[in-house]
């Protein structure tokens, strides 16, 4: 049950291995990795900068997780979200969840990522060769917010 908001890059394999060892007895392990896409809006992304309001991000994350833990039977989770400069093809986000049964794991991880994208205080700026753009929240993500709120 760990949450890391960190500047440093991370390897999925290492974290997955450690997590699996601790959760040997669980029937299902599901993971989600969000990465920087090399091309967006037909422009080549040089890198992205992720800004964080850390104090609020931690508080909101804990609230969301405690709400989801009441909803779904989960044995363990690990969340890593990077901030600062991140290059294309690098990982931004890792969520791993262990559960006895797959359905609750799937619901937990999908809900968590949905909430993360509309509640947790990170912001992305994409840097291109000659300009940049602050990423806008997707309407599809906002819709999830409205139906879930």
């Amino acid at each position, binding site marked *: 049950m760990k949450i890391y908001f960190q500047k440093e890059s991370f390897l999925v394999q290492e974290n997955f291995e450690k997590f699996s060892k601790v959760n040997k007895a669980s029937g299902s392990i599901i993971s989600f990795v*969000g990465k920087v896409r090399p091309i967006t809006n037909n422009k080549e992304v040089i890198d992205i900068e992720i*800004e964080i*309001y850390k104090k609020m991000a931690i508080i909101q994350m804990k609230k969301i997780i405690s709400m989801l833990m009441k909803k779904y039977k989960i044995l363990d989770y690990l969340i890593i*979200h990077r901030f600062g400069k991140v290059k294309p093809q690098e990982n931004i986000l890792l969520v791993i969840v262990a559960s006895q049964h797959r359905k609750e794991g799937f619901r937990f991880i999908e809900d968590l990522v949905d909430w993360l994208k509309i509640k947790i205080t*990170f*912001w992305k700026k994409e840097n291109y060769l000659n300009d940049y753009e*602050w990423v806008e929240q997707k309407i599809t993500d906002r819709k999830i917010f409205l139906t879930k709120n």
Partner: protein
Amino acid sequence: MKILYFAKLRQHLGKSSDSIKISDGKKISDVINELKNKNGNYRRAFDQVKNLQYALNCEYVDIEQTVRDRDELAIFPPVTGG
């Protein structure tokens, strides 16, 4: 009151925070009007950055929420992490 700015708003303002004296009971909308009256830079920033959201002591609140001088107010565009 401590006011924090993030992302596009921070960039447009050219700063990440302000510390201003506020009389308790004012609304966030009043605080923003006060800021906008400071100078053209604030006015432009608050006019240009759309869909601003507000958090009082790390909880999402409405623009009509009243504030106290000891609160921490954060103003930012919709989040885009993940």
